[in-house]
């Protein structure tokens, strides 16, 4: 096998023993384990890898890492596809299929490139100025605009992978495993502190493996491996590779996304978690996130083959790839010199253009030794080539760098390396709320005042020299551990590194262009979003002078790279245009995530059946076996109705309703909320919570209660049993169980701590079957020996303890159906036994299980409300016609609110019954009620809250809230629906057994 043409014969961190085959745009390539898509393509001389967002300009690889704006590729296909992956970070593996994006029909020939020709017509913000005519046509224009925008494509099916999340707690979290991060981890780890070190790269070392740096007179990698093996021996130190810190939130909470399988061949991924989101809570944080090199802004600086100097160096050293054959290195600072040397060593012809003049002899002689031509005081004025760089023009700058001092010289080359200085990776620092400061000398934003319990060290702290990065890291690690109470004497000595004296950077935010001098065209600032220096000037001119306006008007920094390479250049150019200073202009806001993060990982395993708990009762299995249809009530699954073979829902519900009044029906009422209220002040407490009084309720008896919120609106209702002098059992609605308990606790703890009362939930301790109908008593008699069931011995609204079917049970004579009915509660573990016993013995009475639907019908026949259905948070007890339950003699929560102007209005919506003229017509719940049908807007006087066909009554019934409805019984109204207008009549909200005799029977 012959190697790729641009692969160096030796060196690099690639594993030449493990060749890897992958494809790009359908073409097959080989690389080595350790390559990224970018490095492997460059090894094959592939320069053109993508198209830009707006103008569809040909683009190549600019960086070697996370900050890549151009080289975005689509990975995979179908359901496991992934758009917008950074080719500079995607590790190749066998079978990987990458494709270019945002081009049609092909990367080489892209029809969208016509936008480039129209670019004069479509400067920043052009769409605000046009497409307004004719009036409604925007939607048509928009169709084409949308199609042109976007980058990659969404997957076509559900994600086959699994994701995971985990908490992680540590004393010290170190972000970044470069030299300063390693030094920090080592210093903290040796104290015994729990240290977590995360780095986004596959291997530790940070930028070092991309350099030819030596440490302690040996290749830096040796120092890195020594550190790593030390750390491996420390029990409380943990290193996570391929783990990117995404967000830095309050109180040292950070999110870290670990990519666990994306680098593996597909066959090795099965059964593994693709990505894990770590939610880290650290006592102390050390940020050692390094720095990003800044591009220079010059004409056509976006041609494929223009890349960052450090990236070019990294391709040589880390990946053993020659990124070209002949390079022009363009810089305003010293850090491009080492790359130039490494390129020359790798066999490239190199010319170095430096905008500065007073360069050190050390640097000059380094270049001379490699035969690198130095053009001091020069700049690149233009880059030639279309799909790849073919050459550049250079010229000498005048002293203010505003124009050229001499003629333009053309240099043929296929690689342009640029360095405009470095931007410390202050993203996390800033997210955490730290203040930034502008360092004039370096032309960079650096950490200023930090939030508590946090350190920055190394490149991200604005520290340029490796020696200082190491010592800063070590000090930060030590201090962070100490702050957690971990100290250890002594320490590892700092390794020795060479220090080269630096010539200060010369900031040059835009390079004048060759043809137009002052005028800035196609000097790209934001590569991905095609924002040029001219766009920035235009925005400023038009009044978009805040850096935030600039961003939004031009979209600078809004791409997938979030402006890692562009933001500082953009704001500096803005400042220059406005004549303001950079510090005052400030940055846009840094927001998480540091790199785009998979939604699936953020959702973790809380998907599918785990997306929310499903709560079931002890009898659930029986319902399932009987083929019940279920209704979701909060998190509960409740039987809705029990269809028999071929039955429609209506038929099933009719049958269930008839049975509950005609023979015996049985309902699983286990979901009802139950609260055990104990203490000498229990009655007093309930007096305050409920609208009605409790002190005179006798032990052994039950009472229905209603509770309001403090603004007087009905909140919950239910029956309460007095179990003893100092003990009550409160029932709440199923949906409100937790809320009511929390509500009681809140009042007790915050307002009435003097009350001697304790509340405990027993919702789950009890399983309840409610049997209803004329044979209910008889059935129960068969199953109990110790509960007196006679009408007088066991009157309505009382309870008894005893045994049912041999189980310890509490029986309450309460009724939500209006029939003679008994609620039998047993400890949950016996719930199913109780149920099957009742079903078994009930057979000969025709016992019929009924679900929530029949329950609703039955209670509506009697006019009983359902809180949350017949009320909506705007209904008072009075509105429900329940003044009888509102105590006059005591205060209770919400009482004062009932006396306000609006709550005493006669025209309030009040609960009424509603009977359609056509007894077969069942109104839809939510139907609106009017007096007269007019053209909209119609005057609505209320709405239908509950509506059913009542088999027991042989007609439809409904409950409704109607303005002033209490005084309108008998009056006709209309319910206009989409299909028809339904005439109906207001009635008493009670349709069956109006006196309520049967419950007592």
């Amino acid at each position, binding site marked *: 096998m012959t190697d790729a043409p641009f692969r160096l014969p030796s060196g690099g961190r690639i594993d030449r023993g493990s060749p890897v085959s992958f494809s790009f745009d359908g073409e097959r390539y080989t690389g080595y384990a350790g390559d990224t898509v970018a490095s492997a393509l460059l090894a094959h001389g592939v320069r053109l890898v993508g198209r830009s967002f707006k103008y569809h300009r040909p683009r190549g690889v600019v960086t070697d890492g996370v900050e890549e704006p151009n080289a975005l590729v689509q990975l995979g296909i179908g359901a496991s596809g992934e758009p917008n992956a950074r080719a500079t970070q995607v590790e190749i593996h066998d079978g990987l299929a990458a494709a270019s994006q945002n081009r049609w029909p092909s990367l080489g020939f892209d029809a969208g490139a016509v936008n480039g020709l129209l670019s004069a017509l479509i400067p920043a913000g052009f769409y605000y100025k046009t497409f307004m005519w004719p009036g409604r046509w925007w939607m048509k224009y928009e169709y084409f605009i*949308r199609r042109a925008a976007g980058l990659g494509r969404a997957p076509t099916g559900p994600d086959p992978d699994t994701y995971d999340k985990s908490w992680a707690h540590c004393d010290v979290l170190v972000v970044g495993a470069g030299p300063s991060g390693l030094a920090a981890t080592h210093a903290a780890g040796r104290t015994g502190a729990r240290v977590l070190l995360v780095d986004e790269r596959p291997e530790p070392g940070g930028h070092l493996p991309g350099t030819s740096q030596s440490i302690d007179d040996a290749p830096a990698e040796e120092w890195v491996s020594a550190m790593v093996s030390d750390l491996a021996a420390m029990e409380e130190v943990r290193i996570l590779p391929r783990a990117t810190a995404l967000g830095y939130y309050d109180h040292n909470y950070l999110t870290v996304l670990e990519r666990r399988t994306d680098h593996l061949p597909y066959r090795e991924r099965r059964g593994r978690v693709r990505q894990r989101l770590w939610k880290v809570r650290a006592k102390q944080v050390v940020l050692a996130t390094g720095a990003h090199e800044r591009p220079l802004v010059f004409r056509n600086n976006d041609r494929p083959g223009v890349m960052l100097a450090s990236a070019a160096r990294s391709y040589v050293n880390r990946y053993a790839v020659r990124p070209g054959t002949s390079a022009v290195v363009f810089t305003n600072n010293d850090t491009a010199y080492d790359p130039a040397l490494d390129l020359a060593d790798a066999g490239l012809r190199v010319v170095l253009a430096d905008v500065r003049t007073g360069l050190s002899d050390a640097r000059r002689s380094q270049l001379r030794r490699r035969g690198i031509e130095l053009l001091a005081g020069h700049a690149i004025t233009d880059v030639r080539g279309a799909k790849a760089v073919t050459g550049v023009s250079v010229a000498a700058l005048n002293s203010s760098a505003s124009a050229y001092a001499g003629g333009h010289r053309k240099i043929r080359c296929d690689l342009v390396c640029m360095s405009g200085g470095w931007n410390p990776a202050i993203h996390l620092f800033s997210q955490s709320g730290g203040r930034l400061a502008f360092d004039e000398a370096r032309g960079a934003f650096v950490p200023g005042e930090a939030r508590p319990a946090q350190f920055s060290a190394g490149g991200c702290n604005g520290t340029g020299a490796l020696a200082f990065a190491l010592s800063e890291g070590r000090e930060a690690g030590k201090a962070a551990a100490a702050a957690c109470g971990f100290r250890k004497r002594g320490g590892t000595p700092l390794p020795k590194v060479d220090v080269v004296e630096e010539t200060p950077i010369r900031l040059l935010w835009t390079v004048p262009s060759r043809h137009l001098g002052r005028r800035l065209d196609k000097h790209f600032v934001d590569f991905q979003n095609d924002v040029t220096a001219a766009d920035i000037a235009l925005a400023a001119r038009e009044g978009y002078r805040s850096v935030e306006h600039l961003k939004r008007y031009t979209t600078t920094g809004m791409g997938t790279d*979030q402006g890692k390479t562009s933001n500082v250049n953009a704001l500096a150019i803005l400042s220059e245009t406005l004549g303001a200073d950079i510090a005052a202009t400030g940055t846009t806001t840094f927001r998480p995530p540091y790199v785009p993060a*998979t939604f699936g990982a953020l959702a973790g395993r809380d998907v599918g059946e785990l997306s929310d708990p499903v709560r079931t009762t002890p009898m659930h299995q029986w319902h399932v076996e009987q083929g019940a249809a279920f209704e979701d009530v909060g998190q509960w699954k409740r039987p809705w109705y029990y269809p028999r073979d071929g039955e429609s829902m209506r038929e099933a519900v009719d049958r269930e309703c008839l049975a509950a009044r005609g023979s015996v029906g049985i309902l699983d009422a286990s979901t009802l909320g139950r609260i055990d209220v104990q203490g000498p002040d229990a009655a007093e407490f309930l007096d305050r919570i409920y609208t009605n009084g409790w002190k005179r309720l006798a032990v052994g008896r039950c009472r229905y209660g209603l509770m309001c919120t403090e603004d007087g609106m009905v909140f919950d209702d239910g029956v309460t049993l007095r179990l003893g002098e100092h003990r009550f059992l409160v029932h709440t609605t199923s949906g409100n169980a937790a809320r009511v308990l929390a509500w009681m606790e809140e009042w007790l703890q915050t307002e009435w701590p003097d009350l001697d009362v304790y509340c405990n939930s027993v919702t789950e301790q009890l399983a309840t079957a409610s049997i209803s109908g004329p044979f209910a008593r008889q059935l129960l008699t068969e199953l109990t020996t110790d509960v007196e069931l006679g009408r007088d011995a066991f009157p309505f609204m009382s309870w008894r303890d005893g045994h049912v079917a041999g189980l310890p049970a509490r029986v309450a004579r309460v009724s939500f159906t209006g029939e003679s009915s008994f609620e039998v509660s047993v400890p949950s573990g016996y719930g199913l036994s109780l149920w099957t016993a009742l079903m078994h013995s009930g057979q000969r009475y025709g016992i019929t299980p009924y679900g929530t639907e029949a329950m609703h019908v039955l209670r509506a026949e009697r006019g009983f409300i359902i809180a949350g259905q017949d009320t909506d948070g705007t209904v008072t007890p009075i509105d429900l016609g329940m003044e009888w339950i509102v105590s006059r003699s005591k205060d209770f929560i919400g009482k004062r609110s009932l006396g306000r102007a609006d709550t005493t209005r006669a025209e309030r919506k009040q609960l009424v019954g509603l009977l359609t003229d056509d007894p077969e017509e069942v109104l*839809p719940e939510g139907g609106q009620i009017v007096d007269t049908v007019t053209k*909209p807007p119609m005057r*609505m006087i209320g709405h239908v809250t509950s509506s059913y066909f009542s088999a027991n009554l042989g007609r439809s019934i409904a409950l409704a809230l109607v303005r002033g409805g209490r005084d309108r019984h008998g009056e006709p109204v209309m319910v206009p629906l989409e299909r028809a207008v339904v005439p109906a009549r207001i009635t008493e909200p009670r349709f069956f057994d109006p006196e309520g005799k049967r419950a007592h029977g």
Partner: protein
Amino acid sequence: MRYSIFSLARNAFGHHEGWPAAWRSPEPKQSYDVVIVGGGGHGLATAYYLAALHGIRDVAVIEKGWLGGGNTGRNTTIIRSNYLWDESAHLYEHSLKLYEGLSRELNFNIMLSQRGVLNLAHNLHDLRELSRRVNAIRLNGIDSEVLTPVQIKAMVPILDTSPDVRYPVLGASLQRRGGVARHDAVAWGFARGADARGVDVIQNCEVTGIRQRNGAVEGVETSRGYIRARKVGVVVAGHASVLAAMAGFRLPIESHPLQALVSEPIKPIHHSVVMSNAVHVYVSQSDKGELVIGAGIDGYDSYAQRGSFPVIEDQMGALVELFPIFSRLKMLRHWAGIVDTCPDASPIISKTPVKHLYFNCGWGTGGFKATPGSGWVFAHTIAHDAPHALNAAFTLDRFSTGALIDEHGAAAVAH
């Protein structure tokens, strides 16, 4: 200069160096007839309508930061008028109608995209509420319909409508005229329109005090000096309580973070707006290609413009449940605004205990859709020292009388 394809073409020859500023950046004068505090969409719209409809042009809009940098600049841009109660429905519908003509009125393309807003129902309770809402809205003369799961699937094929998921989709309401707009453009368009009519739009100027004498407002203290004013309208959203404290009263408002996020840009895949209050997520796709996603509020008071991560986690869980194909897409950025939540989830557009001091606040999680309508009625209220019929119910004293306009109802979050 009027904006059009022709002016664009003309300027192309001059390398776009001839465009004038969209608005001036004047120094504040010593006094104005009306000072509007808050340069968000609502404040700018108020100033615009004061000048355009009420002939009051001696107006300053005072903004402490940059125009539209508050909630206007950070909202998920959903526009709809399908509100339950009559008072709300009429106000939001008025706003939607204004929106429909706004690009032309302002000569600034605000990219109103009426792609339809769906509200999903996941259980019987949701369905009931949805039907109540749709019926009420329709009878109020506003477009609204109920969709079956089959119709929903046809409209949003990427939505998981299978019946056996944890939160099955049982139905949805649809307002076809609902949609999204380019939020920044709304602020900028109103600013440009107001500026052209003589309004001073003043940025980087913070109101730090409200001066009053004999119970009437006299002017405002600012970081750039004292400014006299005959009338002062305060439209500062999340900061309403802070300004009220300056004026010596309290509001029934709490400021909470509300978060939103965007995905990386992708080719068009989602063409409407889908909201689910039950699972707390809603999503649309912008013209640039990113999915714009929102959720519920964080549970505590905050002025920090950032929220808590668990809210994002829940939101993403709900998102991938509803749209399984979104799982491999990536979150690009998440942020928060400070929303002024009111106990009844309805705004306050009202006179105050201080004469000639007016407050417009409480829009909470859902005021972007109301921007033109809110400015329109607030301008009326300020100009006439009395509310318009459309905002008569939205007074501050409804909290004493109890006449709340409870828009929580089915919509836990009324975006």
